[in-house]
């Protein structure tokens, strides 16, 4: 099952906090849809989904701190 992971941000920046999900579990996602907003110290950014499919499971909840490479969600 495709896993959406937190992309690399920059040297020395290893984690970000989930601000909010633009979709909920069960929603249909198209490749390129911005699926979740994350925040670091001075940047708020949207992560586009790399796959099309159904948002099966939100792994990182709003407020959670996620490390680079960690799973944000599972798409089916």
């Amino acid at each position: 099952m495709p896993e959406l992971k937190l992309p690399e941000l920059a040297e020395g920046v290893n984690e970000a906090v989930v601000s909010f999900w633009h979709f909920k579990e069960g929603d249909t996602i198209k490749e390129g849809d911005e699926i979740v907003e994350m925040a670091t110290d001075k940047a708020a950014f949207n992560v586009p989904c790399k796959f099309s499919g159904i948002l099966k499971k939100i792994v990182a909840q709003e407020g959670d701190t996620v490390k680079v490479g960690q799973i944000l969600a599972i798409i089916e």
Partner: protein
Amino acid sequence: MKHIDLGISEYREAYRIQREFVDKVANGESDNILIITEHKSVITIGRKGSADHIFKTEDIEVLNIDRGGDVTYHGPGQLVAYPIFKLENEAKDIHNFLKFLEDVGINFLSRYGIAAQRNPGFRGIWVKDAKIGSIGIGVKKWVTYHGMAININPDLRPFSFIKPCGIEGVKITSLENLSNEKIDINDAKHKLKDSFEEISLLAETICKR
């Protein structure tokens, strides 16, 4: 570099214009564009911010917004730059882009003979132990918005109503405080645009188009 000057703008209106350009730049309908403005007085809270960092407002409007960072104040006499730029290497460039903005701010102040620098602990533009410029960005479709605010000659009193950027006891200064001469805001706008152009030539984070 394409740029527009909104004069003294309402925060919400400038935000609407930024988001319009984000879509256009993302779709390839517009080149990268630099929006320059001063805002009517407003206090904004970023995604990492807390309303607890506002002690009083004296009727200044407070807005929650979608940039990184904490609480800040904008008002006339503060130069605000919103670069709507496409990032070259997408997520990897987000924090390099923050450094790029700091470099632009430092270059700008050097044009007035002011030696500004980064502060290893805190992002932004600093002169000795005082903060003169703040940064905080948003990114949609790998296009940046929000940006940088540099104090030219604003009323600094409203900064005492808040804990700027969530930093305890931070000193806030302005270009006019440091240079002991009157600064022309239109001249400052030109210099800031020149700094963006000069530093952009060196930056690898921005799509050249």
